[in-house]
């Protein structure tokens, strides 16, 4: 069973961030003919992944070592990868092969796990979910495939002095608890973990010089069978706009009158109270 690539005898902290390029949710999402129209979308680092990127940069700043961003996506993902490099991530690996695209969570996790076997890490960080698919499962699947412990939805991360474990505050369903894990591990980031920085001009200029390595299926020793359409467990049949809500009523009158009317309607018409 794979036990993780502990990068060794030094006190380096090598951190890999699983980062996804997603449409900015400010974008208007248009659904036509059973699919989302991809033209005209603005693309960003998935918001929860931003916390992961920031945490990785901070950890490497404090501890020496290297941070690497790992992104599976089309060629256009390089723009988003450059954003991460501009923020301060050291290295970038782009899983850039058409056969990787349009998979499901299980094939995506298989690909990421295969890539991670080739990158030395002490810690893997990811956002707790990507805001396009909202699946919240890829990072957890990767943890299982690599036989790593995980802590989910973390708002505070503290490395032990010997760097062999970490104390996390985990926030799930409105409650916070303290979770301790050995390293290497996968940590998923929740809002509140940190305040992501903005890229400096120096960072942006420097990012242009940092190389981005492209890996394809052959580089990972993966054949189509384990990652292609046949390997997918779920198939998207169609995409529809959300069901429209019937138009609402504006209740006129001053505050007291409107409030009286509203309470009556909520009780009698909507039966909400």
């Amino acid at each position, binding site marked *: 069973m794979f036990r993780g690539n502990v990068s060794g005898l030094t006190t380096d902290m090598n951190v890999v961030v699983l980062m996804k390029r997603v449409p900015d949710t400010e974008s208007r999402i248009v659904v036509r003919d059973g699919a*989302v129209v991809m033209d005209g979308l603005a693309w960003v680092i998935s918001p929860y992944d931003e916390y992961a990127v920031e945490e990785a940069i901070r950890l490497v700043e404090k501890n020496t070592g290297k941070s690497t961003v790992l992104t599976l996506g089309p060629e256009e993902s390089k723009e988003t990868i450059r954003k991460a490099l501009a923020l301060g991530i050291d290295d970038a690996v782009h899983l850039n092969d058409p056969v990787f695209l349009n998979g499901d969570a299980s094939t995506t996790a298989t690909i990421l796990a295969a890539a991670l076997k080739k990158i030395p890490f002490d810690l893997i960080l990811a956002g707790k979910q990507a805001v396009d698919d909202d699946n919240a499962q890829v990072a957890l699947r990767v943890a299982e495939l690599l036989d790593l412990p995980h802590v989910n939805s973390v708002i505070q991360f503290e490395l032990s002095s010997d760097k062999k474990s970490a104390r996390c505050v985990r926030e799930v*369903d409105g409650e916070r608890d303290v979770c*301790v894990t050995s390293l290497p591990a996968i940590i998923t980031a929740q809002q509140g973990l940190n305040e992501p920085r903005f890229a400096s001009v120096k960072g942006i200029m420097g990012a242009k010089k940092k190389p981005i390595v492209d890996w394809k299926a052959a580089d990972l020793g993966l054949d189509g069978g384990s990652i292609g359409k046949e390997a997918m467990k779920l*198939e998207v049949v169609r995409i529809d706009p959300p069901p429209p809500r019937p138009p609402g009523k504006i209740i006129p009158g001053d505050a007291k009158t*409107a409030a009286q009317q509203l309470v009556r309607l909520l009780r009698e018409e909507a039966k909400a109270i």
Partner: protein
Amino acid sequence: MNNILCIAEIRNGALRQVSFELINVARKIAGALDGKIEAAVVGANVAKLADDFAKGGVSTLYLIDDPGLAQFAPEAYSAALAQIIREAKPSVVLWGATGHGKELSGRVAAKLDLGLATDCIDVRVENGELLLMRPIYAGKAIATVKAKTLPVMVSIRPNIFPPVVDDNAGAEIKQLQLAPVPVRAKVTEAAQKEEKGVDLAEAKVVISGGRGVKSADGFGPLRELAKTLNGALGASRAAVDSGWIDYTHQVGQTGKTVAPQLYIAAGISGAIQHLAGMSSSKVIVAINKDAEAPIFKIADYGIVGDLFEVVPALNEEFKKLLANN
């Protein structure tokens, strides 16, 4: 035989409501799948909860009750649930799509090499195929997804399906012994609930404040109304970022997703990211000074006015209504 296994969600020693919503979903598809409804309970000192869950048409309940599970450890809980799933051999495994359920189902899906459709708002069997409907792009679109193979796992968004309330007990309880599993991550200090009051995710009524609330004190009237209606207090990102309220109250794309019976949005403009967190609410009421605020487009009822006048007026009227019952 295509059995449906419902994974009970337990928190603070009690079964969460979503567990009983799963039974409802199972009933919906059991006929078409020609399967029985089964259930799973995992934890420490949970025998009584197993009895409480072994109802509503559940024919077999699988139980793992082990002191080693007293503190949450994802590896131990995943292993226990995988053990039950291997024993029960269901065709469909239903989970609650709470933070907790999503965490465990993701890990178990990989452990058992199964597909997992997260946060589904509907489940149907059509032409012998299992179809799952789930929101994507922060709820701006709904994907219909087909399970290509069975077994498959599905997590269900809370508060969409009514819970089954059925005291007909009768399930056979099969207890399994937890096979030992190495644990490298575990909870060492259990949750301290930040604030008393109704949990946002399970509340039937949510009163939310946005930029229009103007200050931390501005939440006062909303708190009063929430108290009158035994509801929870929510907030938009604008209010949280301004420091007026703790982010655990945030409803939206990077906050909580809620689906209460009644959602009252006061001083909230209705940005897409906020709608993502509450558009599944059954009834939406908007109160805003700005008649053009986008929130009025999805509200069922709207009042254009000053929330500092309207919210207290509502509080008075609700108190009168509830006193008369």
